[in-house]
């Protein structure tokens, strides 16, 4: 709808939840319990800096460097630290390896636990009741809805995240990527392939 100043002589009233958030923030800031500068820094981090491009760097390095790969599966946080990736909700990450025999998939049945430093803020579908309830019960059906059909022989293993442990799926390196450098490999690693609801792009 076009905006018309004559209809709105005063400022547009924010939505009900927006007003409630503002109210909480004002109460807490007035008491010195929250620092607006800290909030601004958090916003900047999660709106612009953190995202699946970071997880993709980890996967690409694991594809390209066998020593890094070994470290990633032994101690994911140590491997992430080598790439300078640390942060909240990533204090204890476990990397799980897709193989011809096993496909891994991650869910949080409790709420929406997710490896923020590697993947950013989860997409809406990850937080939906439908995904949270069905990923464990009928993973193959869910995968089919994401357009992923796995060979019958490949079993599906579903990992339920918690507030303490977050998972990163390391997909199999696509065919035809020999000789590609890490940056080119990282471009093939989609967010969904690191949750296990997708596969990496073909080169």
């Amino acid at each position, binding site marked *: 709808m076009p905006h018309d100043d004559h209809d709105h002589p*005063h*400022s547009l*009233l924010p939505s009900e*939840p927006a007003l*409630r958030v503002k109210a909480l923030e004002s109460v*807490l800031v007035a008491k010195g319990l929250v620092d607006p500068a800290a909030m601004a820094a958090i916003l900047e981090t999660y709106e612009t800096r953190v*995202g699946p491009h970071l997880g993709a760097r980890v996967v690409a390095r694991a594809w390209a460097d066998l020593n890094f790969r070994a470290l990633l599966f032994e101690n994911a946080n140590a491997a992430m630290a080598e790439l300078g990736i640390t942060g909240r909700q990533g204090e204890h990450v476990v990397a799980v390896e897709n193989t011809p025999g096993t496909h891994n998939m991650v869910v949080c049945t409790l709420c929406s636990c997710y490896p923020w430093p590697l993947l950013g803020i989860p*997409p809406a579908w990850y937080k939906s009741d439908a995904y949270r309830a069905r990923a464990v019960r009928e993973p193959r059906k869910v995968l089919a809805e994401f357009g992923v059909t796995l060979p019958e022989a490949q079993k599906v293993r579903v990992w339920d995240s918690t507030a303490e442990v977050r998972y990163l799926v390391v997909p199999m390196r696509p065919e035809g990527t020999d000789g590609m450098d890490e940056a080119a490999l990282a471009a093939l690693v989609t967010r969904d392939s690191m949750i296990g609801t997708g596969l990496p792009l073909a080169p």
Partner: protein
Amino acid sequence: MTPERPFAEPWQAELFALTVALSDAGEFTWPDWAAAFGATLKRHGAARELDGGADYWAAWLETLEVLLDLAGTAPADEAHEMRHRWEAAYLSTPHGKPVRLGG
């Protein structure tokens, strides 16, 4: 790949940042937050299926309000009064002027 915007509306981003800042400041641990939030989602989800969008953030907001009310850091009556002060400030500020809380 076009990156998806992590928050559909600014208040969701502010709510997220507020919650993380409170946890960083030691007001509650993240596992405690996750347990409380999970319980709210479960309660809401029993009534109807949640799509993970606006309803997810509504559950988040409710969880934080209850936690802070129980902790006494933002009691419900204080938060409610502050919400009305903000509403009044918006309604009394001419369009285009910055909205500030009145005394």
